[in-house]
C-alpha cells in the first residue's frame, strides 16, 4: 500500500515541479513579449501622433504626384531596361560563380575538406554583407552607373545562391552517384552525368527565384548611384518632381509584378 503511495507522491511532486516550471516559463514569456515591444517603440522613437499631424503633408505629396507624368514614359524605358538588365547580369554572374563554390561547399561531393571550409567562408561572407553595401563598394571602385549595381548583385547572389545550391546538392539521392562511381566513371563525368541532371531543375528554380529577388533589389541600388530606375527615382525626389516619382512607382510595380509572375510560372514548369 505504502509502496504504491510513494511513487504516486513522487509523480505528483514531479508533475508539480514541471507544472511550476511551465507556469514560470509562460509568465516569463508573457512579461518578455510586451517588454520587447515597448523597448523597440522607445528605440525607434515611435510617434504615432506625427502620422496624424503629418497627414496634410502626405495629402499634399499625393496631390502633387497626381496624375503621373506619362509624357516622360519614353525617357523611362532605358532606366527600366537598365534595372532589369542589372538583375539579369547579377543573377547570371552570381550563378556562374556560385555553382563551383556550391560543389566545393557540399559535404557529399566536395573534393577536399579545406576547400569545403574556404567555400563555406566565401559563401557566408558574401551573403552577410548586404547588396546595398556591395553597391557602395563597387560605385567607389568602378564609378557610377549600372555596372557597379550588377557587380553588387552578382557578389551578394554568390552567397545566397551558393548556400541554396550546396544544400540542394547535399540533399540529393546519392545512390545514382555511387552507382556511376562503381562503373569506373571519372569524378568530372560523375558530376556532369549524375549530379547535374539530378539537381538541375532545383538549381534553375532557385536561380529564377533569385532573379525575381534581384529585380526588386536592383530598384533600390540606384539610390546609391548604381543606375536603373532607383537612380531616376532619387533624382526626381530630390528635384520635387512628384508626378515623375509616381510614374516611376507605377513602372516599378509593373516590373516587379511581371518578374514575380514570370518567375513563378517558369518554376512551376520546372517542378
Amino acid at each position, binding site marked *: 500500500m505504502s509502496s504504491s503511495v510513494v511513487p504516486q507522491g513522487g509523480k505528483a511532486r514531479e508533475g508539480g515541479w514541471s507544472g511550476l516550471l511551465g507556469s514560470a516559463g509562460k509568465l516569463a514569456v508573457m512579461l518578455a513579449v510586451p517588454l520587447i515591444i515597448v523597448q523597440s517603440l522607445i528605440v525607434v522613437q515611435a510617434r504615432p501622433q506625427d502620422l496624424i499631424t503629418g497627414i496634410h503633408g502626405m495629402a499634399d505629396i499625393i496631390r502633387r504626384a497626381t496624375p503621373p507624368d506619362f509624357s516622360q514614359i519614353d525617357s523611362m524605358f532605358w532606366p527600366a531596361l537598365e534595372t532589369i538588365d542589372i538583375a539579369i547580369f547579377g543573377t547570371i554572374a552570381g550563378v556562374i560563380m556560385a555553382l563551383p563554390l556550391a560543389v566545393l561547399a557540399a559535404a557529399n561531393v566536395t573534393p577536399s575538406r579545406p576547400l569545403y571550409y574556404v567555400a563555406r567562408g566565401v559563401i557566408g561572407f558574401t551573403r552577410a554583407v548586404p547588396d546595398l553595401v556591395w553597391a557602395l563598394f563597387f560605385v567607389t571602385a568602378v564609378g557610377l552607373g549600372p555596372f557597379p549595381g550588377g557587380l553588387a548583385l552578382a557578389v551578394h547572389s554568390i552567397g545566397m545562391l551558393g548556400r541554396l545550391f550546396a544544400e540542394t546538392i547535399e540533399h540529393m*539521392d546519392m545512390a545514382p552517384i555511387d*552507382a556511376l562511381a*562503381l*562503373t*569506373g*566513371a571519372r569524378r568530372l563525368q560523375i558530376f556532369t*552525368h549524375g549530379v*547535374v*541532371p539530378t539537381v538541375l531543375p532545383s538549381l534553375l528554380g532557385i536561380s529564377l527565384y533569385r532573379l525575381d529577388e534581384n529585380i526588386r533589389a536592383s530598384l533600390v541600388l540606384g539610390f546609391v548611384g548604381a543606375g536603373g530606375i532607383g537612380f531616376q527615382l532619387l533624382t526626381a525626389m530630390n528635384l520635387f518632381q512628384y508626378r515623375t516619382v509616381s510614374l516611376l512607382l507605377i513602372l516599378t510595380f509593373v516590373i516587379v509584378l511581371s518578374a514575380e509572375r514570370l518567375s513563378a510560372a517558369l518554376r512551376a514548369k520546372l517542378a
Partner: protein
Amino acid sequence: MLEVRHLSLRYPSGTQALAGFDAVVRPGELVIVLGGNGSGKTTLLRCISRTLAPDAGEVRVNGTDLTRLTGEKLRRARLDLAVISQHAALVRRRSVLANVATGALGRHPTLWTALGGLPAAELVAAERYLGEVGLAHLARQRAGTLSGGQAQRVAIARALAQRPRVLLADEPVASLDPEAAEDIMRLLRRLAAEENLAVLCVLHQVELAYRYADRVVGIREGRVAFDLPREEVSRDAVRRLYLSEAA
C-alpha cells in the same frame, strides 16, 4: 574469372565480418551466395568491388588482384567489374537510353563525356543492351517513370554497357514482386551464359537459388559453410545457415 582467396575484414567495432572467405566464379557461371543477416554477404561484395578495403586476402578479376590497387589503377581494374544492387540507382530525370550508356563512361575519358556528352557508338550499343533486357521500346522514356522491375532491368543493361567480365549482384530482387524477381533471375542466368559473364549474386530467396544457380555458396560468420552445385545443396545445409540468426 573472379577469384576470392582468404578474404578477411574486421570492422572497427570489432565484428569479424569476413574470416578467410574463398570462392571462384568462372566465366558463364551464376554463383549464388546464401546466408543469414550479418553473415557477411554484403561485406563480401563490398570488399570485392573495393568500396571496402579488406584486412587480408586477394580479389582477382581476370588475374589482377584488386586489393593491391589504388587510385587510377583501381579505377581501370574496376571497369571489368560491374555491380548492381537492390535499388536500380538510375538518374531519374535522364532517359533510359542515357542511363544505360553512362555505364560505358569509364572507357571514354574524353572532354565530350566530361562535359556531359555521350559517345554516339555507346548510344547505339545501349540500344542493343536494352534490347537484351527486353526494354528497347522504353529507350526514350524518363528513368523515373519505370516500375521497380523495369528499373532493375535498366540497371542490368547499364552494367552490360560497362562490358564487364564479372557481375556482382547484391540482392537484386529484394524489392521486386515474385514475378519480376523470377524475370531478373532468368535474365542473369541467360546473360551469364550468353555474355560469358562470371556472375556472383547475393540472395535471400532460397528457392530462387535452387532454380537458377549453377553453384550455391553458403556463408556463415564470414566463412564458407558450403560451396556446391545447386543439385547437391541439401535443405538441411541451407537451414543451418539461418540457425544462428533465428537463435
